[in-house]
């Protein structure tokens, strides 16, 4: 099986604030937020990325669609070089990889209705079916299990769970093959979180979308991921099928992380 997305040796370094003396000496290296990370993602696969805060999960996600420009490494989507793409080629690649962020309140325009937001995304990318606005929006809302009446509302009139569904629908509006969900369920309540996790599983099963699922809660990853990558200080320290990584972790950091995770029972 050829991978849908292939990342090889991605490096992203951020500069640190230095004293004059350090600048004169010029020896202090920058902070490597992502340090030689490689992974593959198959079609219709959910890859969970776990790790503590500051482990580089978000920077890695942003590198994939070049919201942050990686310093080194290669990223290939279906064999096409993402780092070399410019202009309309880059736009097309970004259409095929869509992000869902933690805070839908910040990623949805507060002044336009849900229907307009969904329709506009489809229209800009000339998606088939987007000429018929009502049908297009209706289908997307149904896909994320929201009533069609939501279309006339604005983000602030929705609950947190509904807003996050709208953010998912917005990503789906352009017909992506990959969703990159960065802490997409972390801010939600338990019962709503479970609904959203099941929605991501539906999308994988019904549409065959692959998902890079980033979360700091290991239990959340255990629920959805087919494979998992554990990040620590910018590197992937362990990767493998979810069951084997969680049930028999090999890397000492994974063991420590699993140990710190609160159990669900006293």
């Amino acid at each position, binding site marked *: 099986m050829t991978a849908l997305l292939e990342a090889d040796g991605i490096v992203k370094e951020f500069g640190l604030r230095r004293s004059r003396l350090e600048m004169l000496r010029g020896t202090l290296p920058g902070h490597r937020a992502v340090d030689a990370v490689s992974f593959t993602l198959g079609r219709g696969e959910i890859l969970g990325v776990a790790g*503590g*805060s500051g482990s580089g999960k978000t920077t890695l996600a942003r590198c994939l669609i070049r919201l942050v420009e990686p310093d080194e490494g290669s990223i290939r989507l279906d064999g096409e070089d993402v780092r070399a793409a410019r202009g309309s080629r880059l736009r097309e690649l970004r259409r095929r990889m869509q992000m869902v962020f933690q805070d839908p309140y910040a990623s949805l325009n507060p002044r336009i209705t849900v229907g307009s937001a969904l329709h506009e995304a489809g229209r800009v990318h000339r998606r088939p079916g987007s000429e018929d606005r009502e049908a297009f929006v209706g289908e997307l809302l149904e896909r994320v299990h929201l009533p069609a009446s939501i279309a006339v509302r604005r983000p602030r009139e929705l*609950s*947190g*769970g*509904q807003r996050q569904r709208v953010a998912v629908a917005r990503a789906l509006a352009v017909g992506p093959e990959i969703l990159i969900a960065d802490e997409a369920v972390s801010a939600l*309540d*338990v*019962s*709503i*979180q*479970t*609904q959203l*996790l*099941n929605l991501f*599983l539906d999308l994988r099963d019904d549409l065959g979308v692959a998902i890079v699922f980033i979360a*700091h*809660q*290991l*239990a*959340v990853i*255990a*629920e959805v*991921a087919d494979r*998992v990558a554990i990040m620590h200080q910018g590197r992937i320290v362990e990767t493998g*099928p*979810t*069951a*084997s*990584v*969680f*049930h028999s972790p090999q890397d000492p950091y994974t063991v*420590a*992380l*699993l140990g*710190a*995770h*609160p*159990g*669900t*029972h*006293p």
Partner: protein
Amino acid sequence: MSDLLSIRGLRVEFGPSVAVHDVSLTVRPGEFVGLVGESGSGKSLTCRSILRLIPPPGRTSRGEISFDGRDVMAMSHDELRAFRGHDVGTIFQDPFSSLNPVFRVGDQLAETLRLNAGMGKREAKVRATELLDHVGIPDPARRYLSYPHELSGGMRQRVMIAIAIAAKPRLLIADEPTTALDVTTQAQILELLARLRREHDMAVLLVSHDFGVIAQVCDRLAVMYGGHVVETGTVGTLYQRPEHPYTRALLESVPSLESAGSAQRRPAIPGQPPELTETLPGCVFAPRCRFARPECQTISMALERVGPEHETACPIRPFATAPSAMRERAS
């Protein structure tokens, strides 16, 4: 043993909307009580009511709150100030917005000591450094000089805890203290709370939406939904034999590491929690409840005792086994 904190029939209104309908809760000296519920269930407002910090236009329209035998609702401005300063410590979810960004964290801590523990300048500074050390901040003398933005989330939360316990309160209210932190830091903060409680015999009211956190440290817990306490009991009882369908559904929907590699999906509670403006007749959970019956529209949500330290607001009790079946036969 008499209760340190006792809340009876608390009701909080925001204009025409009722945010907290009828909450009763007790905390005994040295006890670790959890308050679980989803956003909008009224748990944070319940905590704020204890300190009489309900933001206007909200108001506590009914209910009694007593702390160590004193009536909190009847306290004067000065008494309230002393009560908030000496008797109760508070930690909120977001440590960044609770600390003043333009003052050094050590000075903020020393200020608390001078105002609430009556210390002099020099003594407060020494004590503040000790407190920073006590809550597990490495190199406390240096950290004393840091500004809030120079500290990580976990360190800021430790500073907040140091400020909250500075005046040696008898009750610590911790509102989602670990929600913004990653699991490793979360485990450290919970351990710190448990240690402080042991050392100072301090009672803790821990608010969380995370069952895992509650299970780790609490003795007893109250589950809230739609402005009502729907079930209370010891942690062991509620995890093993929940009587309210909401508690059970919530426990079932908690993601677990055990699910790794399993193709089975976790059952989710359908629908949405009620909105503030909605007033439902009967049980507030009935619209989302698997076991709802027509009579659920008319029941009151009063807590009924079903075991030692175990109360539930569901009179249907769909999971009750032998004892209640016997009771039905007898009646």
